[in-house]
């Protein structure tokens, strides 16, 4: 299973719609970095509206993907984190500090636009 990565203007857009297993998460990490490299994008939105659980493994992959993208010069915004997911992340002691977030995809794109000034 592969998570589709779409290109929208200068940005990459990912909407995670399926239950993520570990392998899919790692594949996604590779695919995204590859796509950032090839497209030269400066901004990425990962929409998590349909994601019902984020455990410590998926949280680590997401946190790593943000750090790695940042090293490559692309800013990542996570959007649409469900209230239940936010609460379980706090219970797990995971704070995703330094990770940009926004309420929904639209707000995420606005945030990128503001920060990157494109």
């Amino acid at each position, binding site marked *: 299973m592969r998570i589709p990565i779409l290109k929208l203007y200068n940005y990459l857009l990912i909407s995670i719609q399926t*239950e993520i*297993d*570990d*392998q899919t998460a790692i594949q996604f990490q590779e695919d995204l970095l590859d796509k950032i490299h090839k497209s030269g994008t400066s901004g990425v939105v990962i929409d998590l509206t349909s994601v*019902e*659980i*984020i*455990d*410590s*493994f998926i*949280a*680590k992959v997401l946190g790593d993907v943000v750090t790695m993208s940042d090293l490559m010069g692309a800013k990542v915004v996570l959007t649409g984190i*469900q*209230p*239940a*997911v936010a*609460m*379980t992340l706090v*219970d*797990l*002691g*995971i704070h995703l500090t330094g990770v940009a977030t926004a309420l929904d995809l639209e707000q995420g794109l606005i945030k990128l636009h503001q920060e990157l000034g494109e």
Partner: protein
Amino acid sequence: MGTQSCINIQKEWDIVGARQLGRDIAKKIGFGTVDQARIATAVSELARNIYLYADSGKVCFEAIETIDKKGISMIAIDSGPGISDISLVMQDGYSTSRGLGAGLPGVKRLMDEFDLISEKEQGTEVKTIKWLR
């Protein structure tokens, strides 16, 4: 006491199966969305630990009932290498696999009751309960 439903954990995809089963049972018992997510997340952590550290094992769920409350019991059992220092693995951030080390301490916070029994070379058993509020 209800009947027990167990799922074997052998391959990575079983982690997904276990959390779906856990969520379904939690939903049937009447847990709300936030507690369903807490239970599913806890299952995911324990199932992954079995897969990563013990190769195989199982996770069992049961609807439980006392005179004044209802809940779900979730037990993760394996016959892997066991844990010699329980207080060490219960520390936030402790991991032998470059993970976040958030699994076991996280499960303790996600659930209402938590009990870890382990014997070196014998295996590990994590018993947890979440009560319906």
